[in-house]
């Protein structure tokens, strides 16, 4: 039974031609040597592509990048990124990212988190990160399910859906993440779809550039544990861009659209307010 005493598995490298081609474009600079362990077809690959693309667009330096995550399939993300990575505890990406950013305002800090991670166990931190306006980008990988633990109800699983933890269907009305952060006062609120990595790349770019708390809700299929809800074809039908007339400076309009059962994509809301670090600097100045 002492079968597996010794690790000898070599580090895995991307080697095939296609990937070499990508490398030429520079985005592979933002990937670590580890091959993502996600299931083939998982939406997270699309999100990964988008984020990495945005990094490249912005020319973020890998040593000035801090990626913090919680626990879940989402949580593995920092292992696949080149940069300083913090795979924190379940639900705690935001506090750790906040501490990192306040300590080192010069670094780019990303918090990636799952629907269970962010809205379940981590639900207490989200409104506070938002209202502080900490200058981090929080990316919610929302697959409407607990992936890593193999298919239980998450806070965004639709009511009545049957999951491993609710064999008779979930009794709970799902949360609307955009409403949650808008209610708490987030200054940048957007939604993307893992199946449209190019659009998402643009959103991510804006989100990272935004000075303050930016929140990007990304719809993403879990191809392994969700066979009814966030399927690619179903999502393709459900999502739609925010109407042309949508004014992201209008808070009320943003709230209206976030309330909506339609899954709009795009920038819901954006406003400029001093970031947490700016406010703390300001106080430090006053105190000095």
């Amino acid at each position: 039974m002492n079968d597996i005493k010794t690790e000898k598995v070599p580090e895995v490298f991307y080697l095939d031609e296609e990937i070499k081609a990508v490398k030429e474009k520079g985005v592979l600079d933002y990937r670590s040597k580890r091959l993502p362990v996600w299931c083939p077809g998982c939406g997270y690959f699309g999100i990964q592509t988008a984020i990495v693309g945005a990094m490249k667009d912005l020319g973020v330096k890998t040593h000035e990048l801090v990626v913090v995550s919680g626990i879940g399939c989402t949580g593995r993300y920092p292992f696949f990124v080149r940069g300083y990575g913090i795979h924190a505890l379940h639900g705690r990406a935001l506090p750790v990212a906040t501490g990192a950013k306040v300590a080192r305002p010069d670094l780019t800090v990303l918090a990636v988190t799952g629907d269970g991670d962010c809205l379940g166990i981590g639900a207490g931190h989200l409104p506070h990160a938002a209202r502080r306006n900490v200058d981090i980008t929080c990316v919610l990988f929302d697959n409407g399910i607990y992936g890593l633990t193999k298919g239980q109800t998450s806070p965004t699983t639709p009511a009545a859906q049957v999951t491993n933890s609710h064999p008779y269907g979930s009794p709970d009305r799902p949360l609307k993440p955009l409403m949650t952060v808008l209610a708490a006062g987030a200054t940048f609120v957007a939604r993307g779809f893992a199946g449209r990595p190019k659009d998402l790349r643009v959103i991510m770019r804006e989100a990272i550039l935004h000075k303050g708390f930016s929140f990007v809700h990304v719809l993403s299929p879990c191809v392994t544990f969700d066979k009814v809800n966030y399927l690619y074809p179903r999502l393709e039908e459900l999502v739609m861009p925010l109407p042309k007339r949508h004014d992201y400076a209008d808070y009320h309009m943003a709230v209206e659209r976030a309330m909506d059962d339609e899954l709009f994509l795009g920038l819901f809301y954006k406003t400029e307010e001093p970031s947490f670090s700016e406010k703390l600097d300001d106080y430090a100045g006053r105190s000095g």
Partner: protein
Amino acid sequence: MRQVDLTIEICGSSGDGTLAVGEILVNTLSDLGYRALSFDVYPAEIRGFGKCVAHCRVSDKPVYSVGRSVDALVSLNDPYSIEQLATLKPGGVVLFDSWPLREVSEESCVAGRLGPGMYLYGVPFGELSQRSTHGARSRNLVALGAIAGLFDIDAEAFEAGLDRKFGGKKGNVAQTVKAAFRAGHDYVKEKLLKVDPVSFAVKEELEKKDFQIMNGNQAAARGAIEAGCRFYAGYPITPATKIMEILSAKLPPLGGRVVQAEDEISAIGMVTGAAMMGTRAMTATSGPGVCLMTEFIGYNVMTENPVVIVDSQRGGPATGLPTKTEQSDLLLALFSGNGDAPRIVVAPTSVEECHYWTSEAFYLAEKYQTPVILLMDLFLSTCKTNAVLSELDKAKLSANKSPSPGEEGVGRFKVTEDGVSPRALPGTPGFEWTVSGLEQNELDSPSYYANVHTEMTEKRARKLMTALQNDVPRPERFGAKGKVKLGVMGWGSTMGAVIEAVERANEAGLSAAALKQVVLNPLHVEDIEKFVDDCEKILVPELNYSGQFARWLSMHVNKPIHGLNMVKCSPLTYLDVLEEIERLITETS
């Protein structure tokens, strides 16, 4: 002495149906009256790619631990199986696919890696699957047939099992699987010359009992249901999630309720609220979840509220090794929470005991108004065995000390001799109480006085002593009687390996004994002292680095303790312990 004691491993890649073979094997052997234990190793990472091993140990007597060395290895994937060769016994058997579906390069073929004295049989699993079922997906069933044929297991019993399992499926699935099975079986019988000694044949008839094939999670869930648990709140976490999933299906029809909470703090909070209402209530989690529950554990000590908490341990610290077994939450279970917060801690040592002690936990919690922590671990949670469950005592279904009529206004924390206060349940007129995490006097008011705090602290400790006297079984001694050279004290899932090691040590003429207790707090200190006095040396084997049980014992025992501490990501085997027993006894003499 056992008539049979064999360990078979089936090793393959995720798509190979490896674990299914193990399952059918155990089920069939169970039907035949064997006692079996199987423990699966599957890939630790998310996607299901990687090595799977079904490890099955089979005997005519109960089996509580995995086999240390393997008698027969069945390879569905040669590169992975080569890694497994390390634990194959000298003289062990390898059964491999001589017609694999994908080409296997010479150096990664298991056949080329055998040690001297090993027996090798090639069976064209792939080919036979193709021929018998017109497809390659039944390689695993061909292998199963080969196992039956080679090791003398009744083929009809397998076929009956396959009928039971696949009979209900549409199409002629059952026919197909049986054809594959038969192909493997007959090939072996007809084409191979058996030269190895591995055989399941028995001389004495095996006693067929009412076996229930289950793992520790299933056993615990069943114990809870039978003990009248009617409220469960939990949050998913490996390896405890299944308990919630089972109860979500089974409790509602019984009038019970299951809530998936937003986190572990909420889960234990809900359980706390439900238990305060008089409903038997439980949560199950693993180490990281227990960390989040510790404030509430202390709260339930303070409010004297009966909650049951299962901690299925996994490798730590922190997120640690979620898919590897370990016994490193003992000190957490004993000492978590601020202040002096005594609680009952129970560590079942087998699947059967997961059933019995989960049920007993509810009784103890209710009777003594205290949290009870059940320490299981990944191994117990997920290992399957054909268990013989004990009958539960119906009298224990209701154990609350209700106040007598006329006692109205008594308050919730009356100081009593046995430490247990009368406890009215909400809904009872005239007994309205208020409980708090603040220290309270007998009239429920917060109190900051030395006499009250002292009296109440004593009371909370005293009732556990009452429990010890009335309801905690005395430790059980195994192995040699009287004075011995070495005493071995184990706990939890590794106790089985300890007892077996001691028995084998005795057979080998070594003077050793073992002491077992399932309740780890409160402890029968006098019995332990007596045992320790009987032993020249003391050994405590456990799957953790810091020697947690040894540390706990050393608080009660004034003799140096030798620890056998392993953090090896796999279960303890009797041989691990036996080697240490030999070493320590040899040193002595």
